């Protein structure tokens, strides 16, 4: 199954205003959004929970999403009736498990529009995927004095691996700046590009500001000077999807648990010829061609990068989550989430003393905010007593927080199952916070 994907940039070329108008048109003609959020909610058992006597308003999908019953049942069934180790035994169950695992790779490949499933490497999570590149690609293709460009709004997962590489081999890290609204500054980025630039590693969507970066243009500019590109798609793939052939980056990393799949699995997609030039990251079983004590030869990608027993059932769960999401339609989800983002933004803006951090033109449904005189941590605790779950803190993006002079924000991040009730519950709970703080 392949969904037809139109990126948000294409739909709304003139940014925020254009997008609002477009949305209103869509809403009026409501044939274009066919989205039954109640039916979707019914698929997610966690949404029935009562927290501290209130219905759960789960607004932390950016940290990790809840799972639909289809994923849970599929994994349960695979553990009960289809389980054995993969790529090993010559017996029926092992073959079944291997088929499931490799079919999952196919599903992921289709979802990203990869040329071949061999380009899809299963990892432990998104962080591991980036570390794999930093280690294996970084130590092979980069030299002291080469430059890596990252943006000012990276998650620590796309900062620290490059710092480790810097400390190991002496590459330099340059920071592409952003403006006060959280927009990626294309002009400034272009100024940083130079013959020393060998790699650009940026996020697809900021996990704090919600900004959707112009990744296609970033790839184009980077390629112009011969640099490679890694996109951290942990947030982006959920709200914007990806067509890796159209994007043309060298690497795209994402994590399963934010895409309504299980934790414990991530994906590194990479261009096949490049992957096959990279040395293994970890050594062990399954990744070798031939082992003697003198010399070992390695298999091609993806096996080369999947040492040891892989996340077998997690892969099955991830594939089921992808089927679920594509069944609803990634574009339908994005349209709906954008509508809800507008609703949430408008209602939060009405709260006196509330300031939204991140007003980029092109945004995924992530809203970071501050409330006058109240620390995010206090907000988190108090609204939890009303059943509302948001993230409070630095969101693993300290350099970004420093950029805005913040120590912590509260963040509401929306998923495909949120509705206006969740937003209303958040607004009421925030008014309760204000009550307490007087």
């Amino acid at each position, binding site marked *: 199954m392949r969904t037809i994907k139109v990126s948000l940039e294409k739909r709304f070329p003139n940014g925020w205003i254009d997008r609002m108008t477009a949305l209103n048109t869509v809403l009026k003609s409501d044939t274009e959004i066919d989205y039954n959020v109640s039916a979707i909610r019914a698929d997610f058992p966690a949404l029935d929970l009562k927290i501290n006597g209130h219905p759960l308003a789960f607004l932390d999908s950016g940290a990790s999403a809840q799972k639909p019953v289809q994923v849970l049942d599929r994994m349960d069934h695979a553990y009960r009736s289809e389980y054995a180790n993969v790529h090993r035994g010559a017996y029926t169950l092992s073959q079944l498990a291997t088929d499931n695992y490799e079919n999952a790779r196919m599903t992921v490949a289709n979802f990203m529009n990869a040329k071949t499933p061999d380009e899809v490497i299963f990892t432990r999570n998104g962080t591991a995927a980036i570390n794999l590149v930093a280690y294996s690609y970084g130590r092979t293709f980069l030299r002291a004095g080469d430059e890596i460009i990252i943006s000012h709004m990276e998650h620590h997962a796309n900062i620290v691996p490059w710092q480790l590489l810097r400390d190991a081999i002496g590459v330099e890290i340059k920071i592409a700046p952003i403006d006060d609204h959280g927009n990626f500054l294309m002009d400034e980025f272009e100024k940083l590009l130079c013959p020393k630039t060998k790699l650009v590693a940026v996020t697809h969507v900021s996990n704090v500001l919600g900004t959707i970066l112009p990744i296609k243009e970033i790839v184009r500019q980077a390629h112009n000077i011969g640099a490679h590109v890694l996109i951290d798609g942990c947030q982006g793939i959920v709200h914007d999807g990806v067509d890796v052939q159209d994007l043309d980056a060298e690497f795209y990393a994402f994590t399963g648990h934010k895409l309504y799949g299980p934790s414990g699995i991530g994906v590194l997609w990479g261009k096949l010829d490049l992957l096959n030039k990279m040395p293994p990251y970890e050594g062990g079983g399954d990744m070798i061609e031939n082992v003697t004590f003198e010399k070992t030869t390695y298999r091609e990608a993806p096996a080369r990068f999947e040492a040891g027993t892989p996340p077998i059932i997690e892969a099955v769960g991830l594939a089921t989550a992808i089927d679920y999401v594509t069944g609803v339609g990634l574009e339908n989800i994005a349209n709906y989430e954008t509508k809800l983002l507008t609703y949430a933004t408008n209602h939060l803006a009405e709260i006196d003393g509330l300031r939204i951090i991140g007003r980029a033109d092109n945004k995924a449904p992530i809203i970071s905010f501050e409330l006058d005189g109240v620390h995010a941590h206090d907000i988190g605790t108090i609204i939890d007593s009303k059943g509302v779950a948001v993230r409070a803190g630095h969101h693993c993006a300290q350099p970004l927080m420093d950029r805005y002079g913040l120590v912590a924000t509260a963040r509401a991040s929306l998923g495909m199952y949120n509705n206006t009730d969740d937003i209303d519950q958040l607004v009421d709970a925030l008014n309760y916070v204000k009550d*307490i703080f007087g």
Partner: protein
Amino acid sequence: MEDDIRELYQEVILDHGKNPRNFRHPEDATCEANGNNPLCGDKLTVFVKVGVDQNIEDAAFEGRGCAISVASASMMTDIVTGKKVAEVDALFEIFHKMCKGEEVDETPEKFEDDLDKLVVLSGVKQFPMRVKCATLAWHTINAAVHGEKAVSSE
């Protein structure tokens, strides 16, 4: 739950949180330490002037944090001034237990007034994730007077 919230965010705490006492950087401090709560981004620096006989002559702090951590630092700096380092250690031990909801043995009479004040912070025992907010300042002063530069409370 809402009662627990009201108990945690009592007037006294909100007042200390908004108008912290001893929020300054004394020039004559003899030691200082940074306290960092990496999970939520609370950052405090505690300054202490320790005089003869290990007597704390002045205590102050700077930094940013949630209402609980700031209120705790504010109350702490008031309470420890005029005490000996060893007394502060003993008081911290009792306070720590209070915050975690653990049984506290007989408390020395000389601490009675202080503990009466500190008890407002013990509302955190209903919120395990917030215990470290209430104890961050104490961990930090402990580091300062015992010659460590920084602590991280987790």
